[in-house]
């Protein structure tokens, strides 16, 4: 009897805990001016939220309470509250906001404006732009470091990565990478930054201690964004023109496999369970879900038109 009771309470407890621990994926749909919300427990779209024009960039806050969406054509940021799954504020920013990132303490959101070559810093308490920083030509990628001290910016048309000191908001270094860097990702433990270079078809590995590019690794055509898999020490890179994801083994710093996905893959994020990888296929309006151990596609999820999901689009809880 008591065993039954324990088992029952355990079951109830676990049922409750799975209810809570179901990360959502927030997918920007360029063609539909919306965000598809995917419950990753069942891999289905559970809600579609209207946002601004031609949404592209996305970042989920570290506490999973908010999602910030960049809308290049309405030149604003839609702020979604995850509890109600509704837009609570629209913040006007200049020109063409695309890449978007958030500080580790969730207090600041960074937006790259690739028309006006600025980074805007949004105060997430007041939801207003508090400052802007002028950077290189066509900033297209952003990454923060876990200490919150630096912001990294990929300047697509300068072929550089800029490092911004967030204490006084100044550019402290500029590092040359491959041609037309777009999505960038930082590994805090390895002290490395990876940039997907659209025109040279490679990924630059930047050593953040030496502050220089130590290798360019060939991937597919028109690479767009990079995700890190700590568990297997790999990188995953979406290749728009190759309709594939390149797998880089970081032990040898080489591409070891290419996985066919849908057409024009763009955004890529690792699920917090560290078993699944989600890829947004812009042309095909669907997400590919990849098992990161077997490197096989295990699911496909239909989204709105022109899914992009450029940024960290899966919540941690």
């Amino acid at each position: 009897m008591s065993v039954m009771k324990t088992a029952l309470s355990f079951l109830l407890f676990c049922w409750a805990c799975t209810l809570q621990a179901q990360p959502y994926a927030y997918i920007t749909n360029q063609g539909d001016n919306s965000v598809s919300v995917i419950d990753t427990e069942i891999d289905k779209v559970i809600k579609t939220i209207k946002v601004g024009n031609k949404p592209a960039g996305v970042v989920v806050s570290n506490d999973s309470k908010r999602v910030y969406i960049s809308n290049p054509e309405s030149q604003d940021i839609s702020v979604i509250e995850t509890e109600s799954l509704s837009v609570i504020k629209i913040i006007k920013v200049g020109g063409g906001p695309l890449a978007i990132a958030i500080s580790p303490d969730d207090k600041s959101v960074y937006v790259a404006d690739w028309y006006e070559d600025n980074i805007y810093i949004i105060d997430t308490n007041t939801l207003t732009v508090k400052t802007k920083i002028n950077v290189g030509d066509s900033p297209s990628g952003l990454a923060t470091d876990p200490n919150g001290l630096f912001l990294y910016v990929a300047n697509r048309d300068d072929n550089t990565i800029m490092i911004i000191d967030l204490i006084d908001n100044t550019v402290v270094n500029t590092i040359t990478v491959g041609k037309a860097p777009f999505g960038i990702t930082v590994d805090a433990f390895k002290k490395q930054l990876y940039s997907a270079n659209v025109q040279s078809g490679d990924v630059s590995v930047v050593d953040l201690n030496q502050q220089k590019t130590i290798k360019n690794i060939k991937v597919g055509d028109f690479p767009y964004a990079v995700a890190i898999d700590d568990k297997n020490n790999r990188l995953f890179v979406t290749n728009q023109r190759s309709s594939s994801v390149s797998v880089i083994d970081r032990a040898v710093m080489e591409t070891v496999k290419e996985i066919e996905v849908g057409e024009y893959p763009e955004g890529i994020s690792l699920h917090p369970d560290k078993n699944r990888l989600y890829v947004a296929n812009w042309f095909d309006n669907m997400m590919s879900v990849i098992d990161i151990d077997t490197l096989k596609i295990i699911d496909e999820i239909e989204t709105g038109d022109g899914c992009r999901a450029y940024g960290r689009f899966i919540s941690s809880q």
Partner: protein
Amino acid sequence: MNYLKLSLLSILLLPTLVFAHGPSRQKALVTMEVHASPDKVWAILSDFCSIAEWNTKVKTCSASQGSEKGSVRTIEYDTGEKVTEKLFKHDSENMKMLYAMEQLEKGRIMKGLPIATLSTTIFITPADNGASSLVQMKGAFYRAFPGPTPPEDQTDTAAVAAVTTLYETGLEGIKAAAEGK
């Protein structure tokens, strides 16, 4: 009042700021059923320069390295416009090709095809237990007109219509060749 001023200002600023890097990427998708085996259809379209035979909108074609990946073909449209296209994928096993037009020089607007970039995927899937084929062409492209207010024949809608017609013409040609009509 302030709001009005602001919106007036933003209208004035639009052309220089907002569209400096161009508008949004567009899509076109055309599917055609061809009553011939996939092998027969693939034999017709797999040569990178066969486009001059199956698309009546293409007058001439010459390719730098045949149908090898990386080959660059120069095609001349019936309008007299010339473009180069690079072969990114040539996959006989899956009967799939991917090629892309090299980006046009700034300001150039082609007659009848108001686009600045175009990447095309063409692939065959068997239908009717292999007796028939579904041929699909998918295009991702940007319109050529850089500013916010394109003339009517250069809008996103016009660009989508032009690429769709280009694909339809090609697929009709493939169908006619494969079905022996």
